[in-house]
């Protein structure tokens, strides 16, 4: 019912008929870029607001409630404040690297948004190695963090950046292996095919126990990838002031901040697509009536609803648990998550071979 493919086809065919292929391609890419940037900025603003409200509710208080009805313009006020702040230049810092670091982090996360399917046909580019592309691009974010720490010419920043670099590189392994399990089940790395293979049930239900273990490991490793939650010692406020982004002020700090929230959204979107069925509605066995009611809700709502649930889980982790130390974090990855991941993968391969999943 809700299919965006004809709509997209009509735009591309209109452009192709009236202009030369070069201009048609250029204009469609510009439109796409503007659309993704707008989406990125607006979603980032509202994720910050949602986090403040959720954490306030867990702490027996109200969140922002003055700027706008219910405080919804609070983040816009914060953004204006950050834009007006003075950008402090450090004398002995490497100015090219210092200025380029926030851009690397932001560009890496914007590029990852391009591959995620929001509804049928609403996907920027449907690569046949979709999952691998997202993993590779989000690994580029760590380059930005290391450069930021090094170029700040400050002891605190270097410590924070080195810790963060070690953390991200270790947890990428777990993220990849957890996703590899679902790819084994589905048989393809292309996002639209993975979603098509879930039409008779989401992988978290079809794959029973191994898929649930893979989901939990993916959540933990994903939280660690984005320097969030109990793994945020790179920016631990109570230990080293602000870690690798101590020396950044104004809009550059806003870039790091925004990139962290959007990375969280990307992890949630990938989890939704691979484990929770993407934009597919929730069908219960073969009950026609129930399924028709579920079909009536547009897929975009299903996608964002499921992503919101995963984001809520990640926020719940952050506000409940104390922080891990760097050696405990690395021990968790190498001694616990990686062996369990490998065992799980072998189990999933075996199940796929014997067709013992639903």
């Amino acid at each position, binding site marked *: 019912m809700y299919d965006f493919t004809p709509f997209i086809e009509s735009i591309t065919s209109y452009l192709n008929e009236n202009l030369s292929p070069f201009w048609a391609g250029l204009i469609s890419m510009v439109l796409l870029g503007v659309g993704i940037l707008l989406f990125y900025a607006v979603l980032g603003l509202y994720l910050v607001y949602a986090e403040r409200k959720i954490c306030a*509710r*867990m702490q*027996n208080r*109200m969140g922002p409630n003055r700027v706008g009805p219910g405080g919804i313009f609070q983040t816009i006020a914060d953004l204006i404040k950050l834009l007006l702040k003075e950008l402090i230049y450090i004398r002995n810092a490497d100015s090219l690297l210092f200025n380029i670091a926030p851009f690397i982090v932001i560009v890496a996360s914007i590029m990852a948004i391009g591959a995620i399917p929001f509804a049928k046909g609403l996907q920027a580019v449907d690569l046949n190695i979709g999952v691998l592309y997202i993993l590779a691009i989000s690994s580029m974010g760590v380059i930005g963090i290391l450069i930021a720490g090094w170029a700040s010419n400050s002891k605190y920043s270097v410590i924070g950046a080195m810790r963060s670099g070690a953390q991200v590189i270790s947890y990428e392994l777990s993220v990849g292996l957890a996703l590899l399990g679902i790819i084994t089940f589905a048989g393809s790395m292309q996002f639209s095919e993975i979603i098509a293979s879930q039409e008779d049930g989401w992988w978290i239900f079809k794959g029973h126990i191994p898929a649930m273990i893979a989901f939990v490991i993916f959540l933990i490793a994903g939280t660690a990838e984005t320097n969030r939650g109990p793994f945020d010692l790179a920016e631990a406020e109570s230990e080293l002031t602000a870690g690798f982004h101590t020396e950044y002020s104004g809009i550059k700090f806003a870039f790091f901040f925004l990139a962290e929230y959007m990375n969280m959204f990307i992890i949630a979107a990938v989890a939704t697509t691979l484990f929770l069925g993407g934009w597919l509605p929730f069908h219960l066995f073969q009950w026609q009536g129930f399924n028709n009611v579920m079909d009536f809700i547009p897929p975009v709502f299903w996608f964002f609803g499921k992503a919101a649930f995963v984001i809520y889980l990640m926020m*719940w982790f952050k506000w*409940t*648990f104390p922080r891990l130390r760097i050696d405990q974090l690395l021990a968790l990855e190498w001694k616990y998550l990686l062996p369990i991941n490998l065992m799980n993968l072998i189990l999933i391969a075996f199940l796929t071979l014997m067709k013992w999943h639903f």
Partner: protein
Amino acid sequence: MALLKTIKAIGKYFYDIYDGVTSLARGMKVTGSYFVRPSSVVTQKYPENRATLKMFDNFKGELQLIHDENNKHSCNVCNTCARRCPNGSIEIIYKKVEGADGRTKKVLDKYVYHLETCSFCGLCVPSCDEFALRFDQDFEHAVFDRGKLTKVLNKPGSSSKAMKE
């Protein structure tokens, strides 16, 4: 023997994982239980609730000289409160007048109270024999000009009950 040790080590490994995950789940249950109960919010909506906000009776807000409905206060310039104050936040300025019976007595001219140095210790109020002082419940003392914090506590045109005219 070595086989038994290995089995025990593997068992301990999985038990550690189980123990860790359940302890984390218990913590999450506590915060989750507060999330789903909106009635557990304890924030007071100040300053919108100024109309209904009532502090306790004994609250030490600001020092006040008690005036009754005829604009009379009870200070008899004995200087006890100024002597008891540990850091000199009370200054009593008096003038000498001829009384009806020919003797000079002291009459209160200005009861100066330095709010900026008062530490709200409460030593002055119980020391007054005439019960002339009390603490008000006003707590909003912030001003833009420090001169406003030096207050004169006796109202203009008031006279003392303790002095018989």
